[in-house]
């Protein structure tokens, strides 16, 4: 074994620093990656060229292409198209619906980023939940897990697998093919779905079976299903001898959202702005809890009507309604307060409440800074809500969604995806080139514009990948990976191949829970390949275990997909621990079993 050198110590300290920063999150993960990109050449651990080689790597270019292809699929409205036939096949039973939707998501996710597939399906799942009256909490977790598991079906399904071939290159090991992992991936998806179908009632939080979307004034649904509307009339002397009362004041004082109000003499305003004054002798419609309405009626001397009268038409279910909008990953609204977003003015819709991590916020929501995964309950006319939906950044379903079809785009998108796959499989053209061809084809056939393509690329993912690749190179080049591998093997002694792969699987699972899956892959692959070489185990299998097991991120809502579904599903962390622990164990067992079955380790 080589002696420990200064360079090795430096590399190990940089790894330690990276892991430390990943865990404490003083800076974002991608910034940590850029830090590595800059610090390693400064410390002379890699050459300047090696430091930036990640940016032009096969993996990074493939990810860019995959993201663009995903965005193209998104633009076609294909998801809405898929839902109807899938539901027809599934029928009425909720288990069959879960199986059908989970499988569809897994397959889509195998050619898209997991988070992209998860976000894409969320509105459709919300609609299914409403239509089939299945609580969202029963649907979202199995489907979210399937989106993550679906990433293991092909080599472009998730970032760790895309990276894998680049990480194997320095060892001169044979790269994996696009569908080499498919049998293992399919088995993992099947076992994941089976867990929920067979044991769902024990591991999933049991949402009550009452009609979803039905408001109960005393016991508001989490998520604030406060869709009770009351029409009131202000007295003729309402504004006499008093400070003016604004729409915003009613919300602050009585937690009632004014969704429609008459501006004298007879102008009907829906979703009025907060600074609109409430005048004498006019009608207004508020949304909120009955007790608050009664309080307002008695304090302000308003008259409560038995039913909607003036606004019966303009607020009928055909014209207006409320939606639970989930703040999408990379949404332009994230990080802004509701006051700054100003939904009432910009989109003419009224935010009613915000749901975040087991808590419904109704008071002072204007000051709340919106985060990804928050559920904002919005009310407005369908027309306005549709305009908001087109704006992007919020995920929700509308009754008109099913009619929105762009078949010609769907055909082109399907054609280019197939072309890319044929190039990879039929002509054995490199992954990045084939996928980029598919992405370019979608742009040329106007499935999406080039600007939309640029906007869809998530620079965070790109720099996270590209920045960590030099760290992998440095670990290998300085011999640090070999040194750690030998030291560990010396301590452990001789182990059987299966035991070694299992340990690697567990190690990768633990790493991916605390640091990102990309970080775990880059750090672990050089290490486990060296360990496998020393222990005379197939090094490609050891690397594959890392690539797969870094998707084994179910136990905590740290994975992007879990974080996105936590809010709308009203899950608690403990729900993820319960269901995730089972799925994680099953994942490890199935993965090792399949690897030994398929590759005969």
């Amino acid at each position, binding site marked *: 074994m080589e002696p420990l050198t200064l360079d090795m110590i430096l590399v190990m300290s940089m790894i330690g620093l990276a892991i430390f920063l990943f865990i404490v999150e003083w800076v974002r993960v991608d910034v940590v990656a850029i830090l590595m990109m800059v610090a390693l050449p400064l410390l002379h651990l890699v050459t300047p060229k090696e430091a930036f080689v990640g940016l032009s790597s096969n993996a990074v270019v493939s990810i860019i292409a995959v993201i663009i292809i995903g965005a193209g699929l998104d633009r076609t409205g294909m998801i809405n198209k898929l839902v109807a036939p899938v539901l027809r096949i599934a029928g009425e039973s909720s288990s069959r619906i879960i199986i059908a939707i989970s499988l569809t998501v897994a397959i889509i996710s195998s050619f898209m980023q997991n988070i992209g597939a998860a976000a894409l399906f969320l509105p459709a799942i919300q609609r299914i939940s409403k239509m089939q009256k299945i609580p969202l909490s029963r649907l979202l977790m199995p489907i979210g897990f399937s989106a993550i598991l679906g990433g293991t079906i092909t080599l472009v399904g998730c970032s760790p697998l895309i990276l894998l071939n680049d990480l194997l290159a320095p060892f001169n090991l044979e790269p994996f093919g696009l569908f080499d992992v498919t049998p293992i991936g399919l088995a993992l998806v099947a076992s994941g779905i089976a867990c929920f179908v067979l044991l769902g009632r024990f591991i999933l939080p049991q949402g009550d079976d009452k009609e979803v979307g039905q408001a109960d004034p005393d016991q508001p649904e989490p998520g604030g299903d406060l869709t009770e509307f009351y029409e009131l009339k202000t007295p003729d002397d309402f504004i006499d001898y008093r400070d003016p009362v604004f729409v915003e004041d009613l919300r602050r*004082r*009585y937690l009632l959202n004014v969704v429609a109000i008459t501006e004298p003499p007879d102008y009907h305003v829906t979703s009025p702005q907060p600074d609109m004054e409430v005048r004498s002798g006019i009608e207004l419609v508020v949304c909120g809890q009955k007790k608050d309405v009664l309080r307002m009626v008695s304090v302000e001397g308003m008259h409560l009507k038995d039913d909607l009268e003036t606004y019966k038409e303009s607020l009928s279910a055909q014209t207006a309604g409320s939606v639970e909008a989930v703040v999408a990953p990379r949404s332009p609204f994230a990080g802004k307060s509701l006051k700054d977003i100003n939904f009432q003015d910009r989109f003419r819709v009224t935010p009613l409440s915000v749901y975040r*991590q087991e*808590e419904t916020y109704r*008071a*002072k929501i204007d000051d709340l800074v919106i985060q990804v995964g928050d559920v904002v309950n919005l009310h407005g006319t369908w027309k306005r809500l549709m305009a908001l939906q087109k704006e992007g950044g919020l995920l929700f379903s509308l009754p008109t969604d099913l009619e929105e079809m762009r078949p010609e785009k769907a055909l082109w998108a399907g054609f280019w995806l197939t072309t890319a796959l044929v190039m990879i499989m039929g002509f054995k053209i490199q992954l990045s080139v084939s996928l980029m061809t598919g992405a370019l084809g979608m742009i040329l056939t106007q499935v999406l514009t080039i600007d939309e393509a640029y906007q869809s690329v998530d620079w965070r993912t790109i720099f996270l990948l590209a920045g960590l690749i030099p760290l992998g190179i440095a670990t290998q080049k300085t011999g640090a990976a070999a040194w750690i591998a030998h030291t560990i093997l010396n301590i452990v002694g001789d182990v059987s191949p299966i035991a070694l792969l299992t340990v690697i699987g567990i190690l990768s699972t633990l790493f991916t829970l605390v640091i990102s899956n990309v970080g775990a892959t880059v750090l672990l692959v050089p290490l486990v390949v060296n360990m496998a070489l020393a222990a005379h185990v197939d090094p490609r299998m050891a690397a594959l275990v890392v690539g797969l097991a870094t998707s084994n991120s179910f136990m905590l809502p740290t994975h992007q997909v879990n974080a996105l579904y936590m809010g709308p599903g009203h899950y608690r962390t403990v729900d993820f621990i319960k269901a995730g622990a089972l799925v994680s164990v099953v994942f490890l067992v199935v993965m090792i079993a399949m690897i030994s079955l398929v590759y005969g380790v």
Partner: protein
Amino acid sequence: MSIITISRGSYSMGKTVAEEVAKKLNYEVISREVLLDACNRFNVPEIKLESAIHDAPGILERYRHSKQSYIAYIRSALVERVVGGNVVYHGLAGHLLLKGLPNVLKVRITADLERRISIVVERDKISPVEAGKLILEDDKQRRKWTHSLYGEDPRDTSLYDLSICIDKLSIQDAVDFICQAAGAKGVQPTERSKQKVKDMAVACRVKADLVDEFPNIGVTSEYGNVLIYTKDKDTTAGKLSRQLNKIRENISGINHLETHGGIEFPSDAV
């Protein structure tokens, strides 16, 4: 219906001024009563409250948070006293304890050091040097106190609407000025300001009830809609929600109670 707070350096004749102002305007004058109220309501010995409002927190107290609790009690008792308006409060930190209320006239009374020393010499029969030391030490403690709890220097005149030095101006002059200022439009109560005082009373009461177990919370109330802000969401959430039901029953004037976890406290949180 206004509220006047008179902050004073020790032996600066602020008490006399406060009493004269109250007499002239026919207001109630309060000072120690607030401490007694707090003692009775929260079952704390008066001596502890007194030291809480006088001495700066020691190193240990930064961790024990007991001083914060006592101050929350005192604040709650004070705000409840001033809800009705027409009061003159003279005591330490009135202007800080009632921070955020719009119709409070904040007055600072100081006197030149010579004069303060002569008062102490006469009262305590000690030498002028000792008296000077005593006064300066007392001033230092108060500065430390306001600084450690509110990050302010009590000598900063921007904290007050009116700052009067009893030197060339007599006590009677000061009383006249204050009474005149109390009639100014800006300190007259409005519907909103009255509501604000009521809301602050509710918020302070909620904070006082919770501060022992949850020293790091902020509370706001707006028209009886009480918001409890916690810095860290996960550690306190469960324990807190159990307490909230009790609070709902015990404190009147709450229409709605909500916790906002992991969110920056607004500036008006108590």
